[in-house]
């Protein structure tokens, strides 16, 4: 098995565990997490639940030095603004220089509205960046566009200033 996802128990995570995440992975049996019983009730309890603890994934490649990692978007927009062009070109150069480099482009939405719909909106943003990189000659196999929806705001808050910082796509090298 490739080093698809070395997730580890919390204990191991403290000792520092890292993994690479390959693109194009197909579903496999999950080997992540550990189980621990949460209650003293006998296992025969019909209403018993066993707890799984998911571990943390960390990155190995920091990406191009001195280049920003965030592309911001306007409200309800998926268009890359002119001000982000230089940043995207710098990432394109970095990726073209080594075909083994892999980047995950993580789309995000602001806090308004439903979680799944925002996940789809964030996906449109990450795919806009992926397409821009493709036009700049980056091989599609180096890119994965994913979304976190509104689940990981960059800044907290419920005002336009916070929303503007949260409508974004981030480069995350693996």
């Amino acid at each position: 098995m490739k080093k698809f996802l070395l997730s580890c128990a919390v204990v191991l995570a403290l000792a520092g565990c890292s993994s690479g995440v390959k693109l194009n992975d197909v579903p496999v049996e999950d080997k992540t997490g550990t189980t621990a019983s949460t209650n003293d009730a006998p296992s025969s309890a019909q209403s018993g639940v066993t707890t799984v603890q998911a571990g943390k994934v960390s990155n190995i490649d920091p990406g191009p030095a001195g280049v920003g990692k965030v592309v911001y978007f306007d409200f309800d927009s998926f268009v890359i603004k002119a001000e982000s062009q230089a940043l995207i070109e710098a990432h394109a150069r970095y990726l073209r220089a080594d075909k083994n480099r892999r980047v995950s482009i993580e789309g995000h939405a602001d806090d308004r509205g439903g979680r799944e719909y925002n996940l789809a909106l964030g996906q449109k943003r990450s795919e806009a960046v992926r397409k821009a990189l493709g036009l700049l000659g980056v091989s599609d196999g180096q890119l994965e566009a994913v979304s976190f929806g509104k689940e990981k705001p960059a800044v907290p808050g419920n005002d336009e200033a916070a929303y503007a910082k949260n409508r974004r796509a981030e480069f995350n090298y693996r």
Partner: protein
Amino acid sequence: MISRLTRLVFGLLVTLCCGLPSAFAQFRVDVSGVGLTQVPIAFANFRDEQTSPQKIAAIVQADLERSGQFRGLAAGQVLDETSRPDISGFRQKGADALLTGSVTRLADGRYDVRFRLWDVVKSQDLGGASYAVVTGDLRLAAHRIADFVYEKLTGERGVFSTRVAYVTKSAQRFSLWIADADGENAQAALTSPEPIISPSWAPNGQQLAYVSFESRKPVVYVHDVSTGKRRVLANFRGSNSAPTWSPDGQRLAVTLSRDGGSQIYLIPAAGGEPQRLTQSNSIDTEPVFSPDGSAIYFVSDRGGSPQIYRMPAQGGPVQRVTFTGNYNISPSLSADGRWMAYISRVGGQYKLHVMDLNADKAQAITETSADERPSFAPNGRMLIYATQVQGREALMTTTLDGRITARLAGQSGDIREPHWGPFQNKMNSTKEN
């Protein structure tokens, strides 16, 4: 608008049981509106109930009152399932029904919980049952009793013994919880440093599908809650999200971006190659099956704004379902297929709506403004949803008319993404009649 008339606070019972953190506990009930008819029911003190770490009669009473259809009265005396109660005395107290019972600790450490329900108006024994349970299932036994009473007195199946799933976030820890339908007995199924969203119960009530971001992307898992065994259902290139089970439990509909954009696919529950159902250049997501399995309702922005649509479960011609407003998302259907709950943005507020699909009429039923992700109780009489109250995330249950709401109180941190589970298999019991 309905006016708030009464505000009742229940469920302040302190559970002395086990050393478990009971941070996630108790629904507080608000009753509003006029013309409510509630069945008055007297609760006897169950004989030897003090031997049990759970106060059975009080749990039954809180369950029934939360439904909005019952009003509890204290019988003020110990009566067990073999007692011949003074029916006329209870009639004079204004009770229509009376619940009696007992708790006995068995030699093997289990508890034998027995009860009997009386129709006070007709002076009639409505039957009873006995459940021999381990300590961890005492609450379940109480919920079974509440289901029995509810069914005998309303003619409809109760949902008190069902379970709900939800997600909490505290600091940077996300947890997926399984709790009794009254919010008690919460147990963590998954904890993760990354977000968890969209838990969805399998029709068998034993498995949950959900989206976990633990590998720094949305991946769909199927998780057996009692054993903790889980597997990846969908981890394709891009995002994998919005899992929902077909009523027969054989397949799941999911949203994948593997072919670009967010589109709906079917995947066998055992895993396998997805079959694409929608073919659009727009967002298509949040699929949910009709109860008969023939159709899928989903959200699409193909018309320029997110609206709810319907298509055959194998894909095909798409019909628009919502026409009012420019932001309608998160559909959920009642088991009889008549009602659709969803979230609609009205004047910048996100409000839970219920639509009568037979009449194409919809109504906002809440006074909150950040409602999310409704799902029906399996008997179709109540909904659970997430919202914000005084700037904090909250979980609420409500009747379909919005008159009786209950808030899951006492939790710390943020709480969201509820999903009401299906009816559970009946517990082993003797002499249920």
